[in-house]
């Protein structure tokens, strides 16, 4: 999925690259179109295992492909997927030292408060209800921008362990 949208880039001039994970072919296509329409570069995966492989996590959790770290600005994943749920996928990404800072957004067609809480507590930036709207996509940009700040300032990365671990607390609003 190398083609990028011509509809303008972010202010920094960098195209933000999103990894979108959904087992449903129609929903995957829809999310891809939605994201490309907002000037994102999009790679899709139809399950958690493929998503992990793309991120370099595959079967060897500690082998991190440096090139893929800088590639992906955000992961957006469906919650309900056979084999590995979006929640489980997120946990695996968060367990990886090199990838734990990638913002992760979880989507679901079901509005289940306990599910939403669980995801936010585990570190999801946001929980979005499907089908996604353009306004949801616009909100993704602020999650990515905060990540770029960490990338640009390696010193801040070094300080990260001093930040409070409960980053879910501030993200309790549902869309």
């Amino acid at each position: 999925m190398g083609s990028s949208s011509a509809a303008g880039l972010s202010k920094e001039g960098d195209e933000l690259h999103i990894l979108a994970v959904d087992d449903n072919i129609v929903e995957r296509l829809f999310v891809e179109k939605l994201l490309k329409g907002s000037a994102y570069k999009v790679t899709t995966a139809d399950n958690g295992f493929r998503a992990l492989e793309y991120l370099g996590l595959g079967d060897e959790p500690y082998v991190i492909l440096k090139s893929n770290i800088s590639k992906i600005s955000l992961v957006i994943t469906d919650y309900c997927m056979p084999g590995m749920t979006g929640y489980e996928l997120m946990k695996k990404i968060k367990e990886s030292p090199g990838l734990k800072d990638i913002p992760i957004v979880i989507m679901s067609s079901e509005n289940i408060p306990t599910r939403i809480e669980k995801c936010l507590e585990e570190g999801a930036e946001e929980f979005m209800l499907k089908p996604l709207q353009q306004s949801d996509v616009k909100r993704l940009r602020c999650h990515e921008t905060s990540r770029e700040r960490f990338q640009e300032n390696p010193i801040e990365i070094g300080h990260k362990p001093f930040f409070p671990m409960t980053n879910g607390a501030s993200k309790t609003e549902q869309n």
Partner: protein
Amino acid sequence: MKSGLSKTTNLKEKFGFMEGGMEISQLQRHFVEQVSSMFSKGYLDGQFFQLQKLQGDGGIDFYVELVSVFFQDSEKLINEMGIALDKQPVDFKEIGANAHQLKGSSASMGAKRVSKVCEAFCSLCKEMDKEGCLRCFDQLKHEFPFLKGKVEALLRLVQKIVASGGAVPVVEP
């Protein structure tokens, strides 16, 4: 004299009108009527409106692709549901999984009625209600081809509008 002047300045409009402009506006009106009717009868919902807005510069191609993938995938899912229903004993898990998929994809398309039927279907599968599932499946086998027929007719209309150089109206629910 004034009317003569206005006739001249409106030549382009008038010329366009004679060239088939009337046809375009009739097609556009028909499109608006059809979509509005689908909204008011609950076949389509606000998500369809979102999809219309999404086309933007990409034109109708994005929607055509999405629709064709949706119909292909849905037909496959419905077939598989039928097979699972015929099994002895009924494979409720399989049916439920397919109904869940179809629920999601039809919701993405704004196909409200189909999505609602699938939602009911999912519950019936969880309850392992065979009679209920059979009724629901019958409903789906009626709703889905109806929706498909309507959407295909809309797409033909859209293609005519685009071919005549007109803009496809965006219809609000």
